[in-house]
């Protein structure tokens, strides 16, 4: 299921029906996707879904079995990797250990024959952009993981590429550094305005930085949409369960509405149209209140996560659900309390089962 976004202007990058087969294995199974100029698109999915393959084909480090890749309206499918105008940031280890930070950033410029003074100036500008202007004379092994990735970003942007490619740039870093750095990357990307393709398996990361997110699974694009739409209106069960948390709750569908826990809930496109199934309900769509004679479940555990809390409840009909409440709301609940669990009016996707 692909959703091609129509753009008024020529897309900066276009994948057209890209296939990549390794014998029996289909790493990419017909990928078509457009990137608008200046847009940051994230390819999100589990390992093996084809997202990295797509990125490497765009970079020229891998060759598609069939299909075309266009950049700025030009077919570059057969252009060698070192002639494509792209900057790439790898997951790890990509800085040249024998060169200083400044020399690393200026490397692409040196290859293009830019003279020394201009190279140093540009490298300095890039390092300032990523906040490392004092580290120019150090070597890669003297920097932290986060700093190394920032240098890699500066190096990729120094050559003013048409497209910026990021291959899971944060996956090898500590959690806290990851959050800081992803905001950095977004800030830099917005400032420079380069069209960017970002690959990751971390859905929180994807939602935080992207203009649009393309969720991939087994070589195919499940859905491409802005983060809010992806979250609120998942097009397929895979997207609904991969992005954010979902409760699988028994539901009855008739006449365009689903009945979950006795309440009527609107249906999302793609749902089962008739009969019984499972509704994918977001934790924040569930309400949990202390029961006053109308209990339909018991609290199993309360997990305090700072601003919010997740409350696990065992319903009378046996289902185990997780609700997300403000911590203030959850503070009055304890394990074994009898409670009333309600389903909110947000639209749900109902899957067969």
């Amino acid at each position, binding site marked *: 299921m692909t959703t091609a976004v129509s753009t008024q202007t020529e897309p900066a990058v276009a994948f057209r029906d890209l296939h990549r087969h390794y014998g029996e294995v289909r790493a990419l199974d017909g990928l078509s996707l457009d990137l608008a100029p200046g847009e940051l698109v994230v390819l999100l999915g589990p390992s093996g879904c084809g997202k990295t393959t797509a990125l490497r084909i765009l*970079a*020229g*480090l891998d060759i598609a079995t069939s299909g075309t890749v266009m950049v700025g309206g030009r077919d570059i499918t057969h252009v060698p*990797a*070192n*002639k*494509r105008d*792209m*900057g*790439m940031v*790898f997951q*790890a*280890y*990509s800085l*040249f*250990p*024998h060169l200083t930070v400044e020399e690393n950033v200026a*490397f*692409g410029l*040196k*290859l*293009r024959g830019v003279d020394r003074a201009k190279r140093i100036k540009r490298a300095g500008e890039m390092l300032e952009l990523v906040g490392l202007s004092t580290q120019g004379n150090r070597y890669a*092994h003297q920097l932290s993981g986060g700093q190394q990735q920032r240098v890699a970003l500066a*190096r*990729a942007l120094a*050559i003013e590429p048409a497209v910026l*490619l990021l291959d899971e740039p944060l996956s090898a870093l500590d959690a806290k550094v990851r959050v800081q750095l992803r905001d950095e990357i977004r800030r830099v990307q917005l400032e420079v305005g380069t069209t960017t393709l970002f690959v990751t398996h971390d859905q929180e990361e994807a939602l935080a930085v992207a203009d649009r997110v393309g969720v991939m699974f087994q070589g195919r694009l499940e859905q491409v949409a802005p983060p809010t739409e992806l979250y609120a209106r998942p097009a397929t069960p895979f997207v609904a369960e991969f992005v954010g948390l979902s409760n699988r709750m028994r539901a009855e569908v008739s006449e365009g509405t689903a009945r979950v826990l006795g309440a009527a809930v609107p249906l999302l496109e793609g749902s089962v149209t008739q009969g019984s199934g499972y509704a994918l309900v977001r934790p924040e769509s569930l309400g949990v209140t202390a029961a006053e004679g109308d209990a339909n479940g018991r609290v199993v555990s309360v997990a305090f996560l700072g601003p919010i809390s997740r409350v696990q409840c065992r319903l009378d009909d046996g289902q185990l659900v997780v609700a997300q409440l403000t911590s203030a709301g959850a503070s009055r609940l304890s394990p074994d309390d009898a409670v009333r669990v309600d389903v909110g009016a947000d639209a749900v996707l109902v899957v067969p089962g």
Partner: protein
Amino acid sequence: MSRLARLTPSLALLPFLLYLTVFLLVPTVTVVVGAFAENGTFTLANITALADPVALTALRTSVLLSAVSAVIGAVFGAVLAYLIVSGGQASWLRRSVISLSGVLAQCGGVMLAFAFIATIGYSGVLTVWLRDHLGIDIFGSGWLFALPGLILVYAYFQIPLMVIVFLPALDGIKPQWREASVNLGANGWQYWTQVAFPLLRPAFLGATLLLFANAFAAYATAAALVSQGNPIVPLLIRSGLSSEVLLGHQHLAYALAFEMIVVVAAVMGMYGLLLRRTARWLR
């Protein structure tokens, strides 16, 4: 914990330390002391005897032999290592070359000497074939048993040694470096000259030094091939051990052995320094 309690675990190391002391340190000290002694008194006579023309010539030839065989081994060994690295980690080619290299590098010099005698000796297979079929005499005046022959036979174990020592460095070249340089616009030549060669240079130089030390300390090959004269230091030592007096000194063998330790230790020290640089980059 009391001082004694903290020291006790270290006592378990005593057997090992004692063993090494007796069978490694004592001989070494004996050599060092012997180099500075004659008839039980301290003297520099043996050391100054090292400047004797015979000893100096032997030293010069040893250095020449070691340097030439090290360079040949380094260049060809690096090429061979590169050829098997490009085949993939688990390929049968890689594994067999490494095994064969292990054997040939450790191979006693005697066996290698006979290998070459069997090939290009007076009645060697190749010599005979060339003589009978093409009328070419490659044996000549017996260059196999002099310096040129030694260089050839040394190459036979230096090249495999290079493969073993240099391969880890080649393995340490991360694919991301090639991909990153390609992505930034480098063609093959630029990648090699600006990224790969500079990164491999310390490892290459270090390995060359190791090969030099290996050749300088080698004895068996020369002992098996050279029966007349003592062109290199190890053979001069052999003379010194078998005869009472060499060049007018009883303990010249000790002095020569001391000279060997000094040269080899200096070279290995430099190798150690280069190894550290490599380890940092090519971890």
